């Protein structure tokens, strides 16, 4: 089941310890992230005005967020004017109910879906299943994840943790496909044959939305395979679930994003297919269109002056591919449909910093800043990570940490105290050093060594060495 939601089932360090055991996954991920990373640098280098584009993208998003209500109302009016319907959902449950009711009203038990993180966020597939409605994912990777009853591990290439042999086995078992080889071409053909029938026969389709333009009521889906176009044009009814932050003011505002998104995500000059539609078009495509505007915690993020810029995100996944933590732990460790650096700030905020497991995510970072450099809309992810850490850590009256910090300050303040402390530590560390590293500190300090090794104090400090050298020269 690809529905995953945003509530991690365990804290990041525990989940990461598990995923780090999976050597196959780490190999796949390293290959994927390094490949996309290099390609992306080339794609970006082709545009000499890339930095201006980033600034422009960020500026448009900020203006949208500053006056979000007005843009949403304009969008609503435009979509209605063009024959579409607009619904509002405060949370996952309301959105699930809206979609399920719309599907049920058409008396069908099968729907097709184009990859959509917002529907994964609200765990739509499971909710539909509970109402007796089966949703088939039509993006190749999402289909793989769904057939494997697994969870997506990457925003853009959700099945990147699986290799071709596993996929061949899966298709044999679940689709009954006769597959002579595990050539990706052969595997993609099997999916094509399986899905074509669904595309032609299914009455209702469900999608997300990459952008929506307020003044023209135009919704947009960016994709590669054509499954998006199939879902958006063949069925009679189309239901699109869109986060409220995805609205853009006017048509020309789409231009920077159609430059920023493909180059940042798949490292292409342009993705193979982008569909734009406004309400319904007589004689072309679905004749019934519903747009569901989803809040689900976004207005809380909007209310936070520092965290707000998280809502600029266009879900390109560039931050995942440059993140050393993501590259090693993989997407599943984040326990949310939003993995990687953006997930580390978006997930806890969408949950109002109330979820203890999600609250461990802002520490899932080395703060190297690569994500900020890569972000096409300049979200200052490292700054927000630190800010969230501050929000999450309770400001208690003197606790062990604050006493320890005060003591450390007192020691560091005078060189003789510092040197004395080092000597003491060097003598005291003896029993703790194993195979050249301190692997487990006792008591509360054990938190530090639970996920890292500590190099032992050297037999001689730099100061001692310096003094010795000086004496020798005299």
């Amino acid at each position, binding site marked *: 089941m690809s529905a995953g939601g945003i509530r991690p089932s365990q804290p990041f360090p525990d989940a990461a310890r598990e995923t780090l055991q999976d050597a196959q996954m780490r190999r796949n991920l390293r*290959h*994927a992230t390094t490949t*996309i990373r290099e390609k992306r640098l080339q794609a970006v280098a082709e545009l000499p005005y890339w930095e*201006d584009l980033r600034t422009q993208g960020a500026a448009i998003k*900020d*203006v949208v967020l*500053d*006056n*979000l*209500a*007005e843009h949403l109302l304009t969008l609503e009016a435009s979509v209605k004017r063009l024959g579409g319907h607009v*619904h*509002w*959902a*405060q949370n996952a449950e*309301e959105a699930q*109910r809206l979609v399920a009711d719309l599907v049920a009203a058409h008396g069908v038990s099968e729907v097709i879906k184009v990859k959509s993180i917002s529907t994964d966020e609200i765990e739509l597939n499971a909710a539909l299943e509970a109402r007796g409605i089966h949703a088939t994912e*039509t*993006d*190749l990777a999402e289909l793989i994840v769904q057939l494997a009853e697994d969870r997506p591990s990457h925003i853009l*290439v959700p*099945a990147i943790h699986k290799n*071709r042999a596993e996929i061949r086995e899966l298709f044999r078992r679940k689709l009954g496909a006769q597959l002579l080889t595990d050539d*990706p071409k052969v595997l*993609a053909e099997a999916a094509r044959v399986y899905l074509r029938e669904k*595309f*032609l026969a299914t009455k209702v389709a469900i999608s997300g939305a990459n952008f929506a333009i307020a003044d*023209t*009521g135009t919704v947009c889906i960016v994709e*590669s*395979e*054509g499954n998006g*176009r*199939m879902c958006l*044009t*063949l069925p009679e009814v189309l239901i699109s679930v869109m986060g409220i932050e995805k609205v853009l*003011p006017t*048509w*020309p505002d*789409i*231009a*920077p994003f*159609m*430059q920023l998104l493909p180059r940042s995500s798949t490292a292409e*000059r*342009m*993705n*193979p*297919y*982008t*569909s*734009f539609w406004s*309400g319904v*078009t007589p004689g*072309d*495509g679905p004749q019934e269109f519903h747009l569901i*505007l989803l*809040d689900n915690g976004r*207005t809380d993020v*909007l209310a936070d002056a520092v965290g707000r810029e998280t809502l600029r995100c266009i879900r390109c996944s560039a931050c995942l591919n440059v993140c050393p933590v993501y590259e090693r732990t993989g997407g599943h460790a984040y326990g949310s449909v939003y993995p990687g650096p953006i997930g580390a700030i978006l997930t806890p905020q969408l949950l109002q910093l109330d979820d203890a497991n999600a609250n461990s995510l802002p520490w899932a970072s080395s703060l190297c800043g690569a994500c900020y450099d890569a972000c096409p809309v300049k979200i200052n992810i490292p700054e927000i990570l630190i800010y969230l850490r501050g929000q999450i850590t309770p400001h208690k009256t003197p606790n062990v940490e604050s006493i320890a910090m005060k003591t450390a300050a007192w020691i560091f303040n005078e060189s003789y105290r510092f040197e004395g402390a080092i000597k003491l530590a060097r003598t005291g560390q003896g029993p703790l050093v194993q195979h050249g590293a301190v692997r487990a500190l006792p008591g509360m300090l054990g938190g530090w060594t639970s996920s890292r090794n500590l190099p032992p104090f050297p037999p001689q400090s730099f100061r001692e060495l310096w003094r010795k050298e000086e004496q020798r020269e005299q």
Partner: protein
Amino acid sequence: MSSEARLEILTRINRATSGHPPALERPPIPTSTRPSAEILAQFAEYAAEYRAHVQQMAQADIPEALAKLLAGKRVLVPEGLPAAWRAALDSTPDNGQSHAELTHFQAVLTTCAVAIAETGTVVLDHGSGQGRRTLTLIPDQHVCVVFWHQIVESVPEGVATLQEAVTAGRPLTWISGPSATSDIELSRVEGVHGPRSLNLFIITPGD
């Protein structure tokens, strides 16, 4: 439920925002200064890099090139194409065939609204000569005729050209090469669901 949700969401937004948006400075759309032959060449090169089959020709050569490319194929044609293009083809006009009926065609022939050199993209606004959206989706081959004067250099220029169609409520399909996936170990495979081949006829200015 939805109207309560609407009020609640809008109230929360208004509480969260100042309501005094900074004015957005939209930079002017850069107009290209490069010679049009160069832009045409860039479009041809980039489209080919996306595995589109690109042929450059004079307008007069279209019927012959079509006849050669589509010999023996059942070709679907939207309204609005020049009669001369259809002369040598086994072509059927779009008269609202069902999706199932569309699967019996091997190819579709269209024009486009604009083409973008910087990205190798053709854009259909589904006006005259381009047909409804499913026509270019179900048949396995899409042949698209692009005239030199339709090629712009950059995405913002392309977007500006499309303002009128979008304002009129028409859908758009942006196509850059044939359907493709890289979902399995990042190796690119063409033709998952859309047409497996895209042929672009780029019509060069006549003398």
